[in-house]
């Protein structure tokens, strides 16, 4: 049985040929996906949109916001390819903001198309999470009886 907490520190972000995120765990030279990384793989774009829906953020800020909510990206840079994809899909836009303590910083904000997509994804996710919850509840009840 893999200890998800200790292995989380060794996670590696990998990419498939279709550019989908793959979070894998290095264990003795072998790559094994944990369930949490699989879940994160399918929801990170939604989480990024939801974070940007609160307020515009720059890359590092997004990672910090996710970490504060309990989603630790072990390879933080993996958000950038995803942000580029969201940008090309017209869901977000980037803009440079002058900084008083250094060069300009790139912020990302949600666009109306992104807000609509976020709503769709949220609805999808809630339906999916409820279905899983019902199944798990049923399993727990069966186990008790």
């Amino acid at each position: 049985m893999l200890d998800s907490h200790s292995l989380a520190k060794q996670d590696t972000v990998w990419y498939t040929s279709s550019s989908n995120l793959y979070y894998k765990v290095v264990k003795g030279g072998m790559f094994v996906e944990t369930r949490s990384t699989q879940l994160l793989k399918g929801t990170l774009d939604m989480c990024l949109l939801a974070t940007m829906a609160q307020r515009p953020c720059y890359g590092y800020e997004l990672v910090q916001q996710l970490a504060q909510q309990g989603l630790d990206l072990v390879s933080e840079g993996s958000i950038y390819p995803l942000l580029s994809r969201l940008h090309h899909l017209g869901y977000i836009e980037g803009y440079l903001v002058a900084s008083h303590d250094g060069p300009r910083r790139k912020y990302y904000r949600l666009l109306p198309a992104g807000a609509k997509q976020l709503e769709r994804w949220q609805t999808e996710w809630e339906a999916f999470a409820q279905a899983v919850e019902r199944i798990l509840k049923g399993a727990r009840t069966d186990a008790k009886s």
Partner: protein
Amino acid sequence: MQKADQRTQKQIADLVRACAGYWELRGIARKHLTEMQLELEQHLQQAASDGKSLQAVLGPHPAAFAESWAREMRPQVWRGSAVALHGVVYWLSVVGTTALLSQLLAHSPAFTFTLFAAYLLVGSGLLALLLQLGGFLAPRISTRSGREALLLAGIVLAVLVLRLAGLTVSWSRTLLSWSWPVTIVLLLLDAVLFSLDSWRTFRKARASLAFPGFPVLRAVTMFVASVGVFDLLLFAGSVAVADFCRLALRLM
């Protein structure tokens, strides 16, 4: 924000340079490339000042990270061809001017392009490419001079191994030979390609807010000067390499 130590700063600069070099080769437009470079550098700086490792940002394979980001940027194919055109113009300039100079100085009716000259041209191009991608290939060696020394050692070792294996190469073998009218045609072709390359760069610079002005005269002067310096280095290098090979052969 607390600044990272000097070693980490160097590593960050090196990784960012390596990524930028890779993105340029992948055909990412200059404007986007500059922004990507800026974002990555700022993220790495902030992560380092928060006590995180660089691996925590880029993962264990920075090249995979650079590739995944490049893929999402949807590089335009013509950008890749622009890099190739730039390379062709440069190498054509070097070959054309070398041929012209040798024909003028040696008063020879024909210029011979030997295997050795081809080796030097291809080798220097490969060297430039490897040095640009050095941040990925040898991340532990953080200085450019260190990487150059490593590459040189690798080349010398490879030559010695091939020599020990009994491989003999006739460096003076003529690959191509042409008379001065062909040299003139080559230089004219180069001038046309150079004009095309400059026109494209000028048009792009005008369209981009990142480069409001494009000093044409300065660009041409820089190009001519760099070709001249390369010609000189090629000449000096060929003499030095020939001497070195002769010495190595004598020692063996």
